[in-house]
């Protein structure tokens, strides 16, 4: 705590004051002496990576920790001390004076009840409204949080709404009783970037219109910097630094804050690619590629002998990747970017069009030729844990492709696997561990080592960092860039995050609904987007001020 921070607190006294709070589960201490406060009408951000305790502190402020948690210190809402409250008193405060929204809106709404009634429920409970009045207000609130046709939507069930709409419903329910404080725990993490921007816009708007104090928790410093007046940085259960947004972002004092700031995607231009751009034959050539999936035929259709149309995941895609290039594919969920990856590794069969490697159509490969193709093209997957067989050790996983492809006997393959561990900067001792004993970043390194075991020429990376913390993400990207140079890889990098793609790749394709919207040099697309959709994507980026010159230019453009 420094005096500068204290001075920021208005004279009327803080809305929420957290003093020396520690939380432990049995012998494990998850929060150590955490203190911060929030004034009425303020937006305070809490940033930190997984395990930093940022969610725990908010949940202790809401009294939502499991009963096994031991909490010490003091949390005060206005004049009231919260930690000593009984169950009934808590119920009177939650939803009435403090509201909370969560990361995954889909799982936080009761699937069995209409959203209107879920919004109305807190008002019936806290404000004593009749059911009818509460429903009327619920419709008004839905309108308020930007849902069109609110009267009709109020009768919908959660599964009938999109992710963004669900989060808006959560917000409507949380602010229904006009609380003074809203705690938002990673409210946009599960959403597409363009939706994320709109939700943040809504929060800002509510803050301005209603004077709603907001605690915004996020792993994304960029998001916080965009809308918070102050930021609290947490690591391993402790606050390492807090201060005004500008100070944290532009002049981080604590080394960890500095690391965090520098790890933000796009902060650092990575040097990737090694080939000479020019007129040579492309390594990978995709032409007019269309991939479609059958829409499930229901019995009514069957009876009427009607075949429903096929859903086109990819619709006439054409792209080319030169040897040594790093090409990025950007798009939101459902854009078809993963379908492309799966088609290249022959898990989807194209309805039309071709994929060619070195000019050869891969569609007809089989036997030895297919094996050779497998050795040339490899892929790293999104989910670090799910992409490794939970029953095999790291070294087994890495060695398996080597001996299965007959490149070495099993013993030699093991030695080679150990060398690959070195290469992805994992201690050899970790080789004996199974995935669940490794961290996410470590798993992803194992995944990379496995993909590289066959010495491929083309490596497809499908959202390989989206499940990782920013600092880990930065490390993995650096590793990838180094490996690309060392092993002369051509990279097809797939991500939803335009800033990562543009900082890491040389060329970018922007995907939407199975089509390519825009393509061009990475910097070009980021700084001067031509298409409306790309412009929207770029506008949705939350970037830290400062950074490279190019970034500054982007900021100005947005």
């Amino acid at each position, binding site marked *: 705590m420094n005096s500068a921070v204290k001075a920021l607190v208005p004279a009327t006294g803080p809305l929420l004051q957290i003093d020396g709070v520690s939380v432990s589960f049995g012998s494990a201490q998850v929060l150590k002496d955490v203190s911060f406060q929030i004034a009425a009408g303020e937006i305070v951000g809490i940033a930190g990576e997984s395990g930093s305790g940022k969610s725990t502190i908010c949940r202790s402020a809401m009294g939502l920790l499991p009963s096994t948690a031991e909490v010490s210190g003091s949390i005060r809402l206005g004049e009231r001390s919260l930690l000593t409250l009984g169950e009934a008193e808590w119920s009177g405060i939650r939803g009435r004076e403090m*509201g909370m929204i969560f990361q995954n809106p889909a799982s936080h709404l009761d699937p069995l009840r209409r959203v209107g009634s879920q919004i109305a*429920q807190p008002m019936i409970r806290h404000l004593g409204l009749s059911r009818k009045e509460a429903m009327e207000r619920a419709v008004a609130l839905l309108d308020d949080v930007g849902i069109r046709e609110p009267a009709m939507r109020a009768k919908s069930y959660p599964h009938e709404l999109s992710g963004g709409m669900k989060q808006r419903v959560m917000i409507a*329910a949380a602010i229904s009783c006009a609380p003074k404080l809203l705690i938002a725990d990673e409210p946009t993490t599960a959403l597409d970037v363009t939706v994320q921007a709109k939700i943040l816009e809504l929060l800002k708007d509510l803050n301005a219109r209603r004077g709603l104090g907001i605690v915004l928790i996020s792993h994304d410093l960029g998001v916080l910097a965009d809308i918070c007046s102050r930021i609290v940085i947490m690591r391993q259960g402790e606050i390492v630094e807090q201060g005004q947004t500008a100070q944290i972002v532009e002049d981080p004092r604590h080394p960890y804050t500095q690391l965090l700031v520098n790890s933000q995607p796009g902060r650092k231009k990575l040097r990737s690619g090694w080939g000479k751009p020019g007129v040579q034959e492309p390594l990978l050539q995709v032409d007019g590629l269309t991939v479609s999936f059958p829409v499930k035929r229901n*019995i009514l259709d069957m009876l009427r002998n009607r075949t429903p149309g096929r859903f086109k995941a990819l619709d006439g895609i054409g792209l080319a990747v030169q040897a040594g290039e790093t090409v990025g594919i950007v798009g939101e969920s459902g854009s078809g970017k993963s379908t492309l990856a799966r088609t290249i590794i022959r898990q989807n069969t194209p309805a039309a069009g071709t994929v060619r490697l070195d000019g050869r159509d891969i569609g007809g490969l089989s036997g030895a030729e297919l094996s050779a193709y497998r050795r040339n093209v490899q892929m790293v997957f999104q989910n670090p844990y799910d992409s490794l067989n939970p029953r095999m050790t790291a070294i087994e996983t890495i060695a398996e492709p080597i001996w299965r492809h007959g490149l070495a006997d099993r013993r030699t393959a093991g030695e080679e696997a150990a060398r690959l561990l070195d290469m992805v900067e994992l201690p050899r001792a970790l080789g004996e561990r199974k995935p669940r004993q490794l961290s996410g970043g470590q798993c992803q390194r194992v995944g990379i080592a496995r993909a590289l075991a066959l010495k491929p020429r083309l490596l497809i990376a499908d959202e390989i960092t989206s499940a990782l913390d920013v600092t880990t993400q930065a490390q993995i990207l650096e590793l990838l860039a180094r490996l690309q140079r060392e092993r002369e890889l051509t990279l097809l990098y797939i991500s939803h995050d335009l800033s990562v793609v543009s900082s890491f790749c040389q060329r970018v394709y922007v995907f939407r609904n199975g089509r390519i919207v825009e393509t061009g040099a990475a910097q070009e697309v980021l700084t001067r987007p031509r298409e409306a959709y790309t412009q929207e994507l770029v506008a949705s980026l939350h970037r830290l001020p400062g950074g490279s010159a190019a970034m500054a230019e982007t900021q100005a453009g947005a």
Partner: protein
Amino acid sequence: MQIVLKRILQLVFVLLGICVVTFLLVHMVPGDPARVIAGDRANPETIEAIRKSFGLDQPLWQQFVTYAGNLLSGDIGQSMRYKRPVTALIGQFIWPTLFLTGYVICLAVPPALALAIASARKPGGLADQIIRIVGIAGMAIPVFWLGIMMSRFFGVALGWFPVSGYGKTFVDHLHHLFLPALSTAIWMVPVLIQSLRAALIEKAGADFVTAARAQGAGEREIFWRTILPNAVLPTLNLFGVIIAFLIGGTIIVETVYAVPGLGSLMINALLARDYHVVQGLTLMFAVTTVGVTFVVDLLSALIDPRARL
């Protein structure tokens, strides 16, 4: 609409399969219904004459064609032994079985609910441990052994309950069927508890429960309005399976307690090789199973909007 059509299609397929399989199975079992009908001292000519009168002398496929033709016209056949329509026999024997099934449900569901709730309140607590062990013990007891022991103890030694039959009035039914219903319920309760307890614990930790709490809902309200409805769904499906199983699976308990229900009818018909009765009963059980599943689907759809199409 979707569900209805799907179930009807399923029913058609299942019925067709059941018809063929039952027909073959029943006719392949050694033993001759004519012998059972005519009695021990009948001579071979008599037996042959009886076989002929039932068409049993025809080739199997021809018998099946006749049988299938009758089925299509809605006739599930006539008991060879009693010379009565199978439907009449089912009409006679179905009531004790239905009553027993309903009774079992009444005996099993309230304690299952109560115990599952008590158990899920504090997973791993003392109550939970005891309920779990007693439950597992309940599942490990062979129903027929329990039946024998209970009828000896409560029926014979203490004389509290009749050891057989069905009785005449409603109260009589309750009284006569108490032991059979109890022996079945003892096995059924733990199965329900296990399922409901797991679902309750799972749903109690669900995100939407946290959300409800964050909106200020009290624990009672959360339990009754949020956790329970969500937890009931998987148990409802299991419940459907059990009901179907009960209606078709009362053979042992009805044998032990001499309840004149469908299980007894089935055993008697099997022992007498009364082909049409066995086939008709099996068909009826199959239709019941599909029907119960259908009702469960409808109920699920009533509770869960996601199950509606």
